[in-house]
């Protein structure tokens, strides 16, 4: 195997920033354990990181060409699994998106993002011309939307929304003409009122709350408002690890998962919050570099899918925590507590490192 020899080829700056972000996640989990919310969240998370490491190695070890080759199988399996969840899943927080396998409970829609990346890369990687044909666009669009529809049926808007950037990013990068993009955007704009009608009342309220955080402070604007109070009370240097009272007293809901960035900023202040953003910048910067040096079109598309995956999560999550975007419950990769998200992130990281490792045509 060439792996051992080429490990040195891996982008260590990328790996270190990912590890540092994981470290930040562990610290917040530890901090919450101190606060008495959970007994030993950080230990559980550490165990998950162990599993995630193996997943990452798996996606790094097997050549991405092989992975994309079999991605149609994975895609079929994903659709079956999502259908299964729809009928036999467990309901948590009003969405039926969890399924029990053995002693574990996982959310197939999370690793599904990785499957989507591989599947789209296989579909679009075969295209040999500069601009994407319209028929291909429709084909990819429909295939990409299929799991999204199933996830929407589960009632998990947040996760479904996160498929869109991956799809959009990869289609864009495979060469949609700008005028086609403009036409699509115009169509979406026209369809927006219809979409607004489809949204449930609480979802509408969340969007309204973005523009007016004081809207019903005990109700829907509450989460955003409490998040801002928690962050703001952290100040420049933060209150210290384990002393993020506001988030820990339950004012900020889901402070170990969706609002983990809030807790981070409350406890470590602007400095900590800025550091996390910097780590993400480095992470994405290195990934862009990998994309630039990708071996072929498939590799490039995989990279772009992974970048879209991380970047969209960062935008939506931090945007929500800082009150710039509607409150949609999605995790922040590497930082948020929880298994499914971590596994997806690890797989995505493995994929892009895979591309990184095999960047020279004949290795």
């Amino acid at each position, binding site marked *: 195997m060439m792996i051992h020899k080429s490990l040195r080829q891996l982008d260590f700056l990328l790996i270190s920033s990912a590890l540092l972000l994981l470290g930040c996640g562990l610290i917040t989990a530890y901090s919450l354990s101190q606060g008495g919310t959970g007994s030993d969240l950080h230990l559980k998370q550490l165990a998950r990181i162990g599993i995630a490491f193996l997943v990452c190695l798996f996606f790094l070890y097997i050549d991405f060409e092989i992975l994309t080759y079999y991605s149609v199988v994975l895609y079929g399996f994903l659709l079956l699994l999502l259908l299964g969840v729809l009928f036999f899943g467990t309901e948590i927080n009003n969405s039926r998106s969890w399924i029990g396998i053995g002693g574990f409970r996982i959310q197939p829609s999370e690793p599904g993002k990785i499957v989507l990346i591989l599947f789209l890369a296989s579909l679009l990687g075969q295209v*040999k*011309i*500069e*601009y994407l044909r319209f028929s291909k666009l429709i084909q990819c669009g429909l295939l990409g939307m299929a799991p999204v529809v199933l996830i929407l049926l589960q009632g998990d808007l947040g996760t479904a929304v996160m498929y869109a950037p991956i799809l959009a*990013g990869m289609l*864009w*990068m495979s*060469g949609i003409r700008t005028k086609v993009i403009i036409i699509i955007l115009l169509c979406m704009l026209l369809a927006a009122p219809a979409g607004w009608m489809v949204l449930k009342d609480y979802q509408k309220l969340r969007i309204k709350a973005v523009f007016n955080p004081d809207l019903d402070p*005990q109700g829907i604007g509450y989460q955003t408002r*409490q998040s*801002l*109070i*928690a*962050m*703001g*009370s*952290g*100040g*420049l240097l933060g209150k210290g690890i384990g002393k993020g*009272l*506001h988030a820990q*007293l*339950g*004012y900020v809901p889901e402070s170990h998962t969706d609002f983990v960035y809030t807790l981070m*900023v409350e406890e470590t*202040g*602007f400095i900590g*919050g*800025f550091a996390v*953003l*910097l780590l*993400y*910048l480095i992470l*994405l*910067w290195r990934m*862009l570099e990998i*994309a*630039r040096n990708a*071996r*072929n*079109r498939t590799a*490039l598309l995989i990279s*772009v899918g992974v*970048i879209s995956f991380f*970047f969209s999560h*960062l*935008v939506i999550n*931090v*945007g929500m925590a*800082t009150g*710039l975007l509607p409150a949609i419950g999605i995790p922040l990769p590497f930082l948020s507590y929880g298994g499914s998200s971590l596994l997806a992130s690890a797989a995505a990281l493995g994929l892009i490192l895979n591309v990184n490792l095999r960047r020279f*045509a004949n290795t």
Partner: protein
Amino acid sequence: MEYNLENKIFFSRLRILQAIILLVIAVFSLRVWQITVARYSYYIEQAERNQLRRIDVFAPRGLITDREGRIMADNVNSFSLLLRRDRAECVECTIEEICRELGFDRDRINAVLEENRQFPAFRPIILVERLTLPQVSWILARYREHPELDITESPQRNYRYNSLASHVIGYVGRISPEELDAPGYDEAKPGHSIGKDGVEKTHNSTLMGKDGVRTVLVDSLGRIQEELAFLQPVKGSDLTLTIDMDLQEVAERELGDREGAVVALDPRNGEILALASMPGFNPNTFSSGISQEEWSMMIADPAKPLLNRAVGSVYSPGSVFKVILAAGGLETGIIDEKSTVICRGAVNLYGRPFRCTSSHGEVALKEAIRSSCNIYFYLLGQEMGVDLMAEYSHRMGLGEATGIDLPNEVSGLVPTTQWKRETLGEPWYAGETISVAIGQGRINATPLQIARAIGLIATGEATRPHLVLNRPGTAGSSAGEPVNIALENLDLVRQGMWSVVNEWGTGWRAKVEGFDVCGKTGTAQLISRESRESLSDEAKEQFTHNAWFAGFAPLAAPEIVVAVIVQSGGGGGASAAPVAGKIFNTYYRKTRGLQKEQPDESPSAGAGEQS
């Protein structure tokens, strides 16, 4: 790379993506800077406001005792049921269940809920106060099924004698929004109990303690995580009243179910010994939160149980006014001890007959008072004129509030020619003067004013009636001011009053053997002569007259004044004098160390035999 053809668009789009990422991270960094650094002070204050909660710990009110230290009002620890709506899965279902299981009044609870609808759901609502112990244990046993229900303990006012002295004590109730803005309630907060009537109201600031504050750290559900500070509440000061519960009890028992009022006071210092107004009410119903229904019933009750008749109601003084007029007549020199008039049962004045109760023949002052001869006083009044009568009425304290420490005191009316011209725009008619001379017509007064006027006659000194016992050594209103009437004139009036009770005068039923009770009866007409004609003789006596007795004892050195009015009681001698007699008797036996009179002994039996 093998895909040179597409390089151009790939790389340009990668650069765009790169720029977008850089831009977004920059925006986020600025946003985090804005939140954490630029608006730090705003958010830190918000955070504290969220997390720190100051919980008022209500201070118990001071005790109210009578002059002998018997506790009239204290506090009991009462358990209240709290509801936290945010913890309830279904508020309706919970209410349904507790009403069914614990027998709470559904409408009342709904009213409480409605009142609190405006407040955030995490703020606990006091649903029911004064829980019984079985109710408390039922709720505590279901703590897991009903996390939204909670029990708190707080001091609640308890009136040991229930309705006894209810008009003196008053009652407490939750402070209203208007009262919160009113001066004198600066210390009070919403939800506080304050005095609403009686001394509870007038001495509210003394009785009300200083609330304590618990500063606690709460989580987002309002659950207390940690107590950071506890400022202990300070109990209110105790209040010792001048009331003697023995006399109070006799006064209320003797009035019974008749509407009326009794005032007993010490004329030497103005201390109120008993002050009764019937019907009364049970102030305990107010401290546990009175329902709208109960309140409406009390307000609509024609007997007006909440009205303190002793200070808040005016009555024609009737013949009791004659002693005031007599003092005035002597002082002006219009009459002296020996002046007489001939009473033939009626006299024609200004073209119409004015009647007397019987034909008394030639009467002098003492006899005129003893037999309550109207003719004597018609003529005296005619001689004096209404304005001079008003002058002496004012010297006796009529027409102006006594300033007693009770709410809603009214000042009564002493008419003058000027008053009538100014308020009614009519001239004074001479015939009206004749009515006023026997305490009828426009003149009216509260029972307390009558008691004070009798006190003035008894001692020659004016004192301010009051309900709080001055502690020895403190400057108070104990010392009286000499009244502007010669003592020898007052003495002549006193002699007449002694005769009323002790020489088979109209007030003989108030006599107490060995105590030299002096007094004057009054039978004040309620309706005009004309409408009275239409009633039967019996009904005339029964329903058309308020019965008065006002007197003092003993003659030589007066210690106690008693004024009694029995509404629609008929003759003063028959209805009011026995009530006063009982009170004098109780006081006499108590102060002289004698045994209590047997309750079954009738008052007339003790008074009537000798002399």
